[in-house]
């Protein structure tokens, strides 16, 4: 379907697809099996300017918006979700600086991020604070010109690999949720270390680690926004990034669907290519329809965000929810229509199915997305009265 993309948007899509086909597809299986971080591909993305897509031109970026980032993420995801998670988590970690940074903070960090010289990670989750982000226990105590951080963040994408971390910590526990603040912590800061690399079901090219803070002193000016704004920073960040998770869902589903079509056209049983059987045809038809519906929702949500709208929480949750539940169904059905072959590592769909599962979990589980959507529905209904 024609989404009336501009010439530059088409270029971004083409470029990301070229990188996916030439640089990611040939190595994705090896990256998955060796659980290897895709540094080589990150360098290619940097050389192609894709790290600068959503960063303003005055800070060395290309000054594009959510839709452009969405297009790049979708194409990379069609090849490998482990790689696209690495790329997308960089954007996730950058949003707090982009949305709440002072001009000085932006000048300090954004040019390197735009050039792909320094990778970013976002640290919110802790052992006792998953869906319930309000449960975070990491503290940030003001001591003269410094904040002193103590605590442990869990399951942080790009942890250990990134050089810049945006972290949410409690600067005043007595205030509850209003006592959280957001900070920038650089990798080589004394008192900041990393836990072991997690061993995962999927997205194995992506690195997930603990961030450990032990009397980690950071300059006072590293606070993002004001003290007490930590959860606002986190929520606005997630509002901006969630549509990207939706784009990952569209991408991986499309990648799996393309494999399924190719396979079902050539696999012969009972004297016919299996695509001649109506049972297979209907599955493929449903898959294609769902992908297109999700893509339309994701693209339009991104466009809505780029229009400057500020009531994006509900729609971005919808885009994430719908596109990632769809991705799980479509990748599972891609394995199904390919039968035993689909289950084998010779074909990429088993990896896509393992990878797709994370999309329903991270950046807020899909149950939490439904909660968010429902809360907004209730608010809207109350207002309408």
């Amino acid at each position: 379907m024609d989404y009336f993309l501009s010439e530059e948007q088409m270029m971004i899509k083409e470029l990301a697809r070229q990188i996916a086909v030439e640089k990611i597809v040939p190595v994705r299986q090896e990256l998955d099996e060796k659980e290897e971080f895709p540094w080589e591909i990150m360098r290619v993305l940097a050389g192609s300017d894709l790290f600068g897509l959503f960063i303003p031109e005055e800070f060395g970026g290309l000054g594009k918006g959510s839709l452009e980032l969405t297009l790049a993420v979708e194409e990379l995801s069609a090849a490998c979700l482990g790689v696209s998670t690495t790329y997308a988590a960089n954007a996730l970690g950058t949003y707090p600086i982009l949305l709440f940074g002072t001009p000085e903070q932006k000048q300090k960090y954004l040019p390197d991020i735009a050039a792909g010289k320094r990778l970013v990670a976002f640290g919110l989750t802790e052992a006792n604070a998953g869906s319930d982000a309000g449960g975070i226990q990491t503290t940030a105590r003001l001591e003269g010109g410094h904040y002193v951080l103590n605590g442990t963040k869990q399951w942080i994408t790009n942890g250990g690999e990134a050089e810049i971390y945006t972290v949410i910590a409690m600067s005043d526990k007595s205030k509850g949720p209003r006592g959280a603040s957001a900070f920038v912590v650089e990798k080589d800061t004394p008192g900041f270390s990393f836990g072991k690399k997690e061993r995962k079901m999927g997205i194995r090219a992506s690195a997930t680690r603990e961030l450990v803070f032990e009397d980690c002193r950071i300059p006072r000016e590293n606070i993002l926004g004001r003290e007490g704004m930590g959860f606002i920073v986190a929520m606005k960040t997630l509002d901006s990034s969630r549509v990207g998770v939706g784009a990952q869902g569209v991408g991986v589903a499309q990648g799996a669907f393309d494999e399924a079509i190719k396979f079902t056209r050539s696999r012969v049983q009972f004297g016919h290519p299996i695509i001649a059987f109506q049972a297979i045809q209907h599955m493929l038809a449903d898959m294609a329809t769902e992908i297109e519906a999700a893509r339309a929702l994701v693209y339009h949500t991104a466009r809505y965000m780029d229009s400057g709208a500020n009531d994006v929480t509900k729609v971005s949750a919808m885009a994430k929810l719908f596109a990632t539940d769809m991705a799980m169904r479509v990748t599972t059905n891609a394995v199904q229509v390919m039968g035993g072959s689909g289950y084998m590592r010779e074909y990429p769909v088993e990896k896509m199915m393992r990878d797709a599962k994370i999309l329903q979990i991270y950046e807020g589980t899909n149950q939490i997305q439904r909660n968010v959507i429902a809360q907004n529905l209730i608010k809207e209904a109350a207002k309408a009265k």
Partner: protein
Amino acid sequence: MRIAVCIKQVPDTAEVKINRETGTLVREGVPSIINPYDMHAIEAALGLRDALGGKVTAITMGPPQAEAALREAISMGVDDGLLVTGREFAGADTLATSRALSGAIRAIGADLIVCGKQAIDGDTAQVGPEVAEFLDIPHVSYVRKIIEAEIDHEARGSIKVERLMDEGVDVVQAELPALITVVRELNTPRLPSLRGKINAKKTEIKKLSAAEIGLTPEVVGFNGSPTQVKKIFTPAPRCGRRVLEGGLEEQVEALVKELMEKKCL
């Protein structure tokens, strides 16, 4: 350093199909690409420019559509493109092609010229060296490594390279201006960048006709081409291949004996 890269637009042989009835290549609808060896030439030129400063111009002789190859080169980071084009250039053999390219290079001036070792559609490997001869400058073909290159502000400089030979590798140094032709081992061509692609859309491609580079229609294109194609065939492989039989011990023994006989050991 002012660097000129000569590139050729060729049919993507990976996509060429064979007409079963006539046994000929079906060229219609086959996408065009930059000759793969020339991609390595572009990368070499960009690498030198990034290290030494200067400018890279991509040059091609071809029909108006060949502009696409120049734009692709620009999307990789080449600074500008020059299209040598006109009806008079049609039907050129390697001599007429090199004459035209060398004329264009003379017109813009270059300290170093980089070409792919050969084009995948003609496979002659003649154009690079012939361009150097027309320009009366040194050339080194089959370059697999650039060891060093330098140039001063008066455009005096040199380039030192490894040349791939059948029996090994030569290290050759040439004074600039010079021409090199490159093999695949030299580098991995970069992908386009987004800024490059945006730039490639906007950049105006300069066009030169034969008259504009001071050549008469008699010496270019079909008229300027003495080559006559008598027959096209696949040459027999140069050396035979034999698979040794028997157990490992026997095979090693037979191999050593044979190598001694051939005075290789």
